[in-house]
């Protein structure tokens, strides 16, 4: 090989490497993203899950509006398309199909697990990063490498609530009451299994339909069977009714449950005496923060939507900002965004840090709360073991 041809070859290889490097750089640059950057969201805005569903919309939309007001992502605005799922899984799938027609870069779905189960296959086929707040532990066990969850799940709560009740509060004969849907019954089973590990048998296991308004029969059963405490798992509206009716019936039990017990929506409809002493373990809520910026954020959300921000609002808000930081680094290539989500480590959100586990769960920090009158107080954050 002559010197000249060797020189030409080295030059050629260098040129190819340079071109490839430039191409990779261009691919990773957010300025190459479409304008506007299309995000899709399906959530329940009507029907009996509307209160929950609007929290997802409020959190995501509030973050998108803030980012757009600040100039967008590398100068590109985000266009958030929201479709209403209503309360049915069939409608949730139809809503997702409508969102997919817009070829979004990112898709968010709600915290309603049956809806996410119905949607996962079609989103996975579309090879689009899929971010959810659905709380059924099995949501991230479906084998989709595109699905990520940014809210704590029932499996974490089901272990921690019995442990805290038995080991910290010293109660050994709890009654269990849960809403009779995928959310509540799944949690109830998990709680019973966790209690069994602690060698504790519940005094009574009861449930109520999501539309039920009178839970006095269940409360009387729990009282008659000699329970020393109540594990309560439900939505804010029905948790409010349970606590009110417990008070009306003169039943005084240490109550612990999911974040609904300390949700602002619940506390708004309870007297200080009714709310006082209730414990909750769940996603982090903004109301207990001492950070003036977070309290101001919470106030602005309330003013805009007339609905108090809760743990889900925070989770969806954080998720949008997490994606912003990822897109700024890797651009708008979907597999690159997916890989970056899967590699998330110690990303600081509003109240917690996010870290991806192999299944796609990013949230591993929960809050333990206790109501003092109508004011929830953070007893302390608790991290899932291993995080």
């Amino acid at each position, binding site marked *: 090989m002559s010197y000249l041809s060797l020189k030409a070859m080295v030059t050629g290889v260098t040129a190819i490497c340079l071109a490839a490097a430039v191409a990779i750089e261009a691919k990773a640059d957010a300025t190459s993203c479409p304008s506007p950057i299309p995000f899709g969201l399906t959530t329940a805005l009507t029907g*009996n899950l*509307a209160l929950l569903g609007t929290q997802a919309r409020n959190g995501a939309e509030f973050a998108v509006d803030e980012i757009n007001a600040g100039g967008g992502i590398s100068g590109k605005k985000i266009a958030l398309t929201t479709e209403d799922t209503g309360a049915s899984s069939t409608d949730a799938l139809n809503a997702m199909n409508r969102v997919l027609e817009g070829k979004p870069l990112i898709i968010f779905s709600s915290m309603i697990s049956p809806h996410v189960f119905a949607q996962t296959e079609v989103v996975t086929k579309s090879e689009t990063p899929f971010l959810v707040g659905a709380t059924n532990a099995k949501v991230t066990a479906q084998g989709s490498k595109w699905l990520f969850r940014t809210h704590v799940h029932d499996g974490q709560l089901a272990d921690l609530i019995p442990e805290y009740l038995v080991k910290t509060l010293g109660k050994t004969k709890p009654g269990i009451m849960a809403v009779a849907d995928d959310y509540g019954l799944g949690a109830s089973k998990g709680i019973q299994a966790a209690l069994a590990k602690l060698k504790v048998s519940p005094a009574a296991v009861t449930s109520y339909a999501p539309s039920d308004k009178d839970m006095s*029969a269940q409360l009387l059963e729990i009282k008659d069977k000699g329970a020393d405490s109540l594990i309560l798992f439900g939505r804010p509206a029905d948790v409010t009714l349970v606590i009110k009716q417990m008070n009306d019936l003169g039943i005084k039990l240490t109550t612990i449950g999911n974040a609904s017990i300390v949700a602002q*929506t619940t506390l708004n409809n309870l007297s200080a005496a009714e709310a006082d002493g209730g414990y909750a373990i769940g996603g982090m809520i903004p109301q207990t923060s001492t950070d003036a910026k977070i309290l101001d954020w919470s106030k602005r959300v309330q003013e805009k939507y007339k609905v108090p921000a809760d743990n889900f609002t925070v989770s969806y808000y954080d998720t949008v900002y997490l994606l912003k930081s990822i897109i700024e680094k890797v651009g708008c290539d979907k597999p690159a965004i997916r890989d970056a989500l899967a590699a998330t480590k110690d990303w600081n959100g509003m109240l917690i840090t996010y870290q991806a586990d192999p299944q796609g769960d990013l949230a591993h920090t929960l809050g333990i709360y206790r109501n003092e009158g109508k004011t929830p107080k953070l007893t302390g954050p608790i991290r899932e073991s291993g995080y």
Partner: protein
Amino acid sequence: MGQLVVNGLALGSIYALVALGLLLIFNTVQIVNFAQGQLLMLGAFIGISCAVTHELPVAAAWAITMVAMALVGIVFMVLVYFPLRGRPAFLVILTTIAMGIVLENLALIVWGPLPVSLPSPIHGPPLRFAGVVVSMHQIFIFVTLAVILLLQFFFLTKTRFGILMQATAQDLHTARLVGIPVNRTIAVAFAFGAVLSGIAGLLVAPIFLAEPTMGGSLGLKGFVVSVIGGFGNLPGAVIGGLFLGLIETFGARYISSNFRDAYAFVVMIAVLVAWPRGLFGEKSSEKV
């Protein structure tokens, strides 16, 4: 046991009130209004707007709600019943279902998804005897149901307008031929039916909270109660309501709380098998 009886009767009284509104309309135009539960929800939210949002006295909130619900009933008749009058009954029934969905979503837009409580017009410590607790609001519900039942019974059987309503129900065309102001009679039935639902909403909101989807289940239970008691039969509706409230409460306590809603429909089917015209007999069985 005693506590279950009290709570079952209180729940049953609410079902009975929904059924009474349903039957007032049915007894006049022979149509089942499946939006009765949503009218209840509307009454609760109008009351909340007055008493909570605008901080009016609860008594004024009740009065305004009843007037507003009477107007809502008339608008409902104009939009739902009149355009489809004379068409097959199932068309009107389907339209009432659709109207219920519209009302639910309208409430979601106007009042939002948050559950809200309405203050009770009656205050005071609960009565306690032999370990049984009866709240003042529960007593108010029992008294209101009794008064409404008596007034409705008196109105339909002893007043000229009530008799005109019954005549219209029996044969609308003949009633018109003999000079009965049929449209006005029907309008009064719709207005009163909506007012009764509004009262049920005002009674429910202090204990069960108000939210846009609260009417669906209560409206359906009102229908079940009407079938159990015998469609069109006023005392039947009240006794059917109380009976269903007790069945649900005792079933949830002693069988399983998982099937609470199912008890209503199991009882309805059982009653229809044993007594096809309901426990107290139907007033009319031509249209359902």
